């Protein structure tokens, strides 16, 4: 069963709710190593996406472009800009299409990852959201069943976050707290784990 506008609208509501729920947790995680605005960035962005949801087009490219713009409009923080960058990369690829299949998830996430790497001039293994996306892309590679894709993605984001936890931050504001950051979750990875979990959630 393919993913269409309706599926997106449902996912948007799940994601928006998750971000409201995690508002404090994300601010706190970012506050420990940065400026403490990650929860603000995600809730502002998703509220704007939700406000526009009714008017979102069938064309998934146009739909995702609108979502990307919600983030460039609502935030200047790195994560918002990276979200917009990733969404735009997927939007370009899906332009003109009304649906896509679970088997494409891996490739699409990879597109987002690569665009975000170019935008942030950072490499994999740096303990950033890039590592979450890379893990998701790899774990979902070749899977065609939506439920399996969802579970694999959620599991991958979760374990990437855990495996990176002992390492020092190398990127962004957290870099100057490299020592302190060892043993702490990267805020962006924490956020991506929550994002993927919300998207993957079928009870939601």
């Amino acid at each position, binding site marked *: 069963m393919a993913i269409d506008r309706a599926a997106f609208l449902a996912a948007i509501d799940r994601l928006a709710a998750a971000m409201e729920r995690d508002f404090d947790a994300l601010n706190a995680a970012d506050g420990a190593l940065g*400026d*403490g*605005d990650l929860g603000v960035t995600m809730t502002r962005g998703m509220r704007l996406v939700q406000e526009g949801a009714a008017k979102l087009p069938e064309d998934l490219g146009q739909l995702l472009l609108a979502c990307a*713009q919600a983030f*460039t*409009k*609502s*935030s*200047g*923080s*790195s994560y*918002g*800009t*990276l979200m*917009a*960058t990733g969404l735009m990369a997927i939007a370009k690829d899906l332009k003109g299409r009304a649906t896509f299949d679970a088997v494409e998830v891996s490739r699409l996430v990879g597109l987002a990852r690569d665009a975000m790497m170019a*935008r*942030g*001039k950072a490499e994999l293994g740096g303990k950033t959201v890039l590592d979450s996306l890379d893990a998701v892309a790899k774990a979902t590679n070749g899977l065609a069943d939506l439920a399996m894709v969802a579970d694999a993605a959620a599991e991958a984001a979760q374990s990437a976050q855990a495996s990176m936890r002992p390492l020092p931050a190398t*990127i*962004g*504001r957290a870099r*100057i*707290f490299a020592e302190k950051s060892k043993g702490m979750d990267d805020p962006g990875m924490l956020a991506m784990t929550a994002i993927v979990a919300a998207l993957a959630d079928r009870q939601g």
Partner: protein
Amino acid sequence: MKKILNNPVDYVDEMLAGMTAAHPEYYRLHGETGRVVARATPGKPGKVGIVTGGGSGHLPVFTGYVGTGLLDACAIGDVFASPSAEQMADAIRAADTGAGVLRLYGNYGGDIMNFDMAGELVEFDDIRCTTVILADDIASAPPAEASKRRGVAGMVYAFKIAGAAAEAGRDLDAVTMVAQKAADACRSIGAALSSCTVPQAGKPTFDIAEDEMEMGMGIHGEPGVWRDKLRTADAIAGEMMDRLFADHPLKAGDRVSVMVNSLGATPPEELYIVYRIVKARIEGAGAHIVMPLVGRYATSMEMAGISITLCTLDAELEGFLTAPCDCAFWRV
């Protein structure tokens, strides 16, 4: 929090409202976002545009330096937070008179991502953009990693020099080259005695004991090279000059401008006490001081402390540095 404000969320918008109301002859708000400040009277057609952007809380940086012989427009974010790519794109549009736009700003990850994205957004408007990034804070990374250094008060020299080149009618590539030369000519170091408070955080960014200082601390409270008991003015100034010279030695006969800058709370009285040493050290190296700048040029609200910036000049840079400029905070 010893600050005069209303709802912290409104700090920047109310600041901009008051600033444009107090100085309508210099500043106007441009675009829908309310976070772009442009010249009251735009540069003449054909003049290269210069934009900057970054977080609030550093006046006169960034918005204050919008003016003749300086910047054309500026996108300003929340306190210590980058403006959005959309806002930067608006600033670029406001600055463009058809001759292209130089993005001249400090080396911070968020700002870079957003200015890059802003550049992509304005490609649709066929505006050609170039970029020069200030990375003058020698305490923020060793010489080997100079490109990782943060941009601080050296920005003011780059704004002034690039602004004069643009006013003089240089084209985009020439203005960009001059701006890069100015950026490369600047070395800065800061020393903080107290923290400031980001309105939305509501508490000081960092704690520091009543008798302590931190050498090399960044303008947002980024950790410096050491924290210890407060030293005398002469000792502090001497060490800062040692570090600046170690990073970029002066040669006899060099012509340099120097900025002794207050981070906010430190009064001019104390900047002048420091300047005695700064002048003696530069002249002791056989160099000649051009247009010393002593005052509040790049701040962190009410933070106590100073920064010292050296800008080594050649004939071209000196000509543009000493050319006229005019904004509400600075006139040459």
